[in-house]
């Protein structure tokens, strides 16, 4: 078992690649690539479930670690490991992959081979981002994740794929230039890319403060574009409305938010604290702005994009409140966002496939014709707006309450207004799609309700939303067992609200 524990992360990384290679070798016949893709992602999901099953709660720091020298000079290690922060994100990535495959099952008619092979490569890159503990390895996966995504958006875009793909690629690729320079600067001054070593070296204060501040900003900038944080969200709406459903589910949020927590707040706690007020303000603005724009969208993909901006801003708020409760809430909310958004994308993708349009105005009164879709959509929407007993509530509550008590009441109130606006646009969307008078399109077009395969995916997701809402205690203890920034632990005495809360959070553990 120890051997398996040591190599499990490598196996998780290689499994999708092996699937991609198999798809590339075998002929492009019928649904063969899709079946291989489904099988690979299910195996990967099974492998990722090994992690929570064998995660030792009492043990601090990274687990399942593997570290091997990859390149001697500069010393780059193949160093992977998980802690409470990344553990469930890895599982989430594993979970969303088969959902993505099912969502593409009927949507991708041609060139399946390329699609599924690249989809699996993208999977490896994403898992690599969550698992890497060496900055260069991390950067490698971070960049690699862009390519399959961009090519697939260009190939399968709904209207003008290449334009959206180019926009997406440049928006995320150009900010990673300062990121790489910052990483190189860190290496030139410390001689290591190792996350844990860097954390200690930066905390010890041996590095010049001025440049370090710029390094922290470069890190933040790259991540903020990827999340996206207002006002860097220019790529989001186009990408959401062009990208195939399977990819749109994974494109926003997770990677950037995780990187913020791990590599910005985690590596540069002092600099992050200096910037935190700005980010809190931007997050709240983004939350309100996204919600307001979501209210006026005519196309449901674009509505979802601005809703995502709004929700991701809420998570950013949780992260930069710099409270332990806020971080718990943020991580929990990243998981929620993944599950809920995955389900919403799947449902809207089904609607678009059946009715051939993403214009909200064309729909209306669908509930009578496709009752199961309507039911599932309503539950998912309620989870998204944070109804108690469903998962969205737990995360939103943790973030908002920690902001209220630990950061600033004014921002907390503003954020709550944003969350209420979120309820408004979601419920209005539900009303326009499924209730009211039947639109001509809904009345004329004979469309079937959910198929068995779709139900098999959606009901478990809904069950998961309920489970995560009712029993967050299954997830939270693992999430709390993360390697926080070292300085926060040491400086409890400072009379700052966030820190006293941090101390109490520390005490509870």
């Amino acid at each position, binding site marked *: 078992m120890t051997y398996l524990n040591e190599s499990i992360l490598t196996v998780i990384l290689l499994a999708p690649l092996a699937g991609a290679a198999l798809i590339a070798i075998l002929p492009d016949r019928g649904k063969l690539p899709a079946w291989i893709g489904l099988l690979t992602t299910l195996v990967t999901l099974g492998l990722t479930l090994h992690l929570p099953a064998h995660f030792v709660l009492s043990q601090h720091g990274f687990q399942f670690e593997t570290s091997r020298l990859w390149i001697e000079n500069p010393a780059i290690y193949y160093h992977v490991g998980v802690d409470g922060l990344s553990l469930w994100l890895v599982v989430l990535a594993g979970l969303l992959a088969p959902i993505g495959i099912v969502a593409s099952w009927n949507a991708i008619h041609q060139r399946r081979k390329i699609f599924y092979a690249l989809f699996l490569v993208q999977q490896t890159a994403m898992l690599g981002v969550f698992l890497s503990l060496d900055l260069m390895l991390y950067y490698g996966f971070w960049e*690699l994740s862009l390519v399959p995504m961009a090519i697939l958006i260009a190939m399968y875009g709904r209207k003008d794929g290449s334009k959206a793909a180019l926009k997406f690629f440049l928006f995320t690729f150009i900010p990673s230039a*300062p990121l790489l320079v910052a990483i*190189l600067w860190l290496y030139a001054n410390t001689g290591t890319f190792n996350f844990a070593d860097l954390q200690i070296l930066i905390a010890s204060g041996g590095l010049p403060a001025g440049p370090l501040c710029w390094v922290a900003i470069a890190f933040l900038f790259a991540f903020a574009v990827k999340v996206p944080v207002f006002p860097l969200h220019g790529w989001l709406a186009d990408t959401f409305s062009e990208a195939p459903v399977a990819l749109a589910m994974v494109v926003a949020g997770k990677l950037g938010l995780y990187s913020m927590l791990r590599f910005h707040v985690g590596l540069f706690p002092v600099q992050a604290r200096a910037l935190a007020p700005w980010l809190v303000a931007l997050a709240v603005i983004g939350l309100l702005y996204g919600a307001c724009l979501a209210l006026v969208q005519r196309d449901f993909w674009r509505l979802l994009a601005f809703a995502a901006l709004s929700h991701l801003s809420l998570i950013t708020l949780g992260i930069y409140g710099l409270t332990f409760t806020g971080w718990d809430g943020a991580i929990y909310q990243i998981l929620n966002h993944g599950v809920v958004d995955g389900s919403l994308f799947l449902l809207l993708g089904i609607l678009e496939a059946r009715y051939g349009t993403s214009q909200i105005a064309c729909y209306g009164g669908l509930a009578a014709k496709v009752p199961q879709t309507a039911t599932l959509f309503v539950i998912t929407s309620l989870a998204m707006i944070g109804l108690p007993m469903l998962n969205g509530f737990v995360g939103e509550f943790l973030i908002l309450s920690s902001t209220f008590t630990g950061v600033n009441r004014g921002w907390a109130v503003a954020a709550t207004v944003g969350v209420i606006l979120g309820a408004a646009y979601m419920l209005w969307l539900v009303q326009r799609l499924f209730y009211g008078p039947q639109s001509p399109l809904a009345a004329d077009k004979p469309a079937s309700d959910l198929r068995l395969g779709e139900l098999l995916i959606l009901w478990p997701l809904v069950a998961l939303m309920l489970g995560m809402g009712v029993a967050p205690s299954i997830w939270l203890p693992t999430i709390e067992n993360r390697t926080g920034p070292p300085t926060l632990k040491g400086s409890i005495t400072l009379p700052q609200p966030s820190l006293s809360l941090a101390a109490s959070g520390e005490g509870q553990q």
Partner: protein
Amino acid sequence: MNPGDMLRILPEIVLTLTGVLIMLADASLPANAPRRALGWVAALGTTLALWASLWQLSLPAGTAFYSTVETSPFTVFFHVLICGIVLVVLLLSLDSLPAESHNQGEYYALVVLGAVGMCLLTSGIELLVIFIALEISSIATYVLACYRKESGRSPEAAIKYFLLGSFATGFLLYGIALAFGATGTTQIYELSRLLPTAQNHTMVLAAMALMVVGILFKVSAAPFHVWTPDVYEGAPSPVVALMSTAPKAATFALLLRVVYEIFPTLRSSWAPLLWCVAVLSMTVGNVAALRQQNVKRMLAYSSIAHAGYLLAAFAGLGPSGIAAASFYTAAYAAMNVGIFAVVTMVGGYDDQRSMIADYRGLIYRAPLLGGLLIFFLTSLVGIPFTAGFFGKFYAFSAAVGGNAIWLALIGLLNSGLAAAYYLRLAFVTVQPAPDTESFAKVATPTVGVAVAAALLFTVGATLVLGIIPTQALQAAETGAHTLQVPANDENPAYITEGTQQPRGNRDGIE
């Protein structure tokens, strides 16, 4: 001179013999006989030369022919690189030159003889030998650029290339003359020993500036780049694959020698010059490439930008800069030869389909070529796990190590800009082609054995340099250390001390 000296130029001898053999065979074959076999002879000779270069590693590093050439891990690194490029280009030409072309013998002979010049350029340590070597390689490339003389563009390209190229060699020669005037010698080690004590500082500065400018012309760095797009557009694609990589690698080796070995004391003068040229090259190259509609012109501007990235490595101090620059030439060669191989196959010998629009839907017509094109483009963008990434990574980390953080930042932002045009081409190849008449007529390019081998080599090299670059990097580093660079240019005493050591006794040699 002793007989052992011959071993120090063994690769050059092998290449020369191959070239002469091909010329003689070409002349003695009947006029209408197929000459494709001569290409295989050339490939065989180049492979032998490659082996001979590797074998030279077992020689103790040292000089020959009255200290005019040397063998060291540095020269071996570039020899292997050049021979590798020439080999791939020969394989590519074997399948892409039209069978009825009766000048094939000349073509192969010129490629091989040009390689002699490039190899000698990297191993020469006497400026006059270097000058002659540069001429050998340049003249071969001028003629090769004109090879497709039935089209109007090819001679135009060749003449432009020739005029500006000879202009550049003029600069170089003038610089050599001034260096000679200041010190009374043209031997590189003597020069580096005498220059710090030379009386006429202005003359030394002028010598350095003229030599560097002459070299920058050859590597098509901005603002000396104007010939590049026209020449690349007009010359046959396999020749462009050659001349955008092999002579460039050799000339960069020369630049390394000039700035790090001859003028290390003038670092404060040449470093800002190269800084400016690097920034200008990448910016001009990338901005101009954004607007191109012709794939070969786009790649020409991209090669200007890559020369800029490479020059960024020169901001690195001592061996780290040299190693980074050497590694970049290898990484760039792998992906650039690869992409030109694809362009040759898609565009055809006579460049009938060289516009970006012609690549539309390529991946459906020819999945292999389309996939490879995207692969090489991602490498040119600099995505991790490809050669392009580590090339840039080392170049810019050398620059950051040399405290040129702005240069690294500008360079990486530029590579972000570059992604726009590389990806434009990549996305065009995945767009579904409209089923019009003109597209139906386009034949699917067939990939023969030789081209398949060439593609395999380049893909392999691009992946190996991107995933397990350790060995290549070690070779580059060993080479860099044999260039005997003072770690700190503020300390001329160290330089004199370093160069007074006998060449054979240097450490850091395998």
